[in-house]
C-alpha cells in the first residue's frame, strides 16, 4: 500500500471515512500491509521523543518575574478608584450625539418627502381625529 496513505492513517487526518475504512480493511486482512504499517508506527513513534530542554535558572526566574510584574500591575489597576467625571469629554459626546440626531432627523424628513403621503397631511389627519366629538 502507498506509504503516504498509511502516514495519513497514522495521523488520523487527511483521509475520508471511506479511505480510512479501506486502509483498516487492508491492515486487518493483508499481512504485508499490516507489517508495513507496524514498521511505520514504530518509526513514527521513535520520532516522538519528548526531550525537554533544561531551562537556565536565570531564564526561569525571568519568567516567574514576568508573572509577578503582570500580577502587580493587575493589582494596581484594581486598587485605582474610578476615574473623575470629565466635563469636556461629556460636552463633546453630547454635541456629537446632538449633531448625529439632527442629521438623522433631516435625513428622515428628506426621505419622507419622496413618498406619496405628504407629512403635512398625516399631521392633519392626526389632529382632526383627535378632535372628533362623539355623537
Amino acid at each position, binding site marked *: 500500500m502507498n506509504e*503516504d496513505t498509511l502516514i495519513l492513517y497514522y*495521523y488520523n487526518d487527511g483521509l475520508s471515512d471511506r479511505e480510512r475504512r479501506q486502509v483498516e480493511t487492508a491492515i486487518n486482512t493483508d499481512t504485508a500491509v499490516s507489517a508495513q504499517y507496524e514498521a511505520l508506527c514504530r*518509526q513514527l513513534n521513535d520520532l516522538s*521523543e519528548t*526531550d525537554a*530542554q533544561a*531551562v537556565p535558572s536565570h*531564564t526561569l526566574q525571568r*519568567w516567574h518575574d514576568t508573572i509577578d510584574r503582570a500580577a502587580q500591575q*493587575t493589582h494596581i489597576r484594581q486598587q485605582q478608584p474610578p476615574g473623575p467625571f470629565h466635563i469636556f469629554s461629556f460636552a463633546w459626546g453630547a454635541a456629537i450625539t446632538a449633531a448625529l440626531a439632527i442629521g438623522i432627523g433631516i435625513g428622515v424628513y428628506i426621505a419622507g418627502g419622496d413618498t406619496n403621503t405628504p407629512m403635512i397631511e398625516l399631521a392633519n389627519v392626526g389632529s382632526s381625529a383627535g378632535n372628533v366629538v362623539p355623537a
Partner: protein
Amino acid sequence: MVEILQSPGTPTQADFHEAISNRSDRWLSACLKITRNRDMAEDAVQDALLSAWNKRHQFDNSARLDTWIHRIAINAALQLLRKNRPAAFEPLETDIPDRGDTQESMRAEQELGKSLAAALTHLSEFERLCFVLKHLEQWRLKEIADEFDSNVGAVKQAIFRSVRKLRGRMTGLQGEQA
C-alpha cells in the same frame, strides 16, 4: 504575592508559577523546535506567559493550564518566526533533498543536541514546521495550512517528505549509536 480579585476558575498567580516550575522546559523545547533559535524560543515563552496572564479569564477550566500556555507559546513562536524569517512560511513547489551536514545544521545540532532535534535541522523550514506542528503538536492539517496561508495538499506533501527524510536520518543515527 499580591492579592487579586478574580472570578472562580480563573488561574491564579500561584497556578502560573506552578506551571512555569513544572512545564516550562517542555514549552521551551517546543518553541526551540519551531524557531531553532534559543533567544527567540525564550522570548516566545515569555510573550506567551504574559498573553496567557492577560487572557486568563478566557481560560477554559476543563483544560490544563500548562497545555493552554503550551499552545499559546507555539503560536507566539510562530509569530516571532514569521516576523524574523518570513521565508520559512513559504511552501516549496519541489522537494529539496537533504543537504547533508552543512555548517548551519552542525551549529544547530550543537544547540539542540542529538537525535530528533538534530535530524530536524536537515529539513527545509516549511517541512520542519509542518512536521513539528503535525507530529509533535498534533495540529490538524487544515490548521497548519491556515497558519501558513497554504493548502492541505501542500502541507501533506511537506509532511510526507519530512517523514521520509527523518526516518532515513534517525535510522542512520541509531546505527551510529549501536
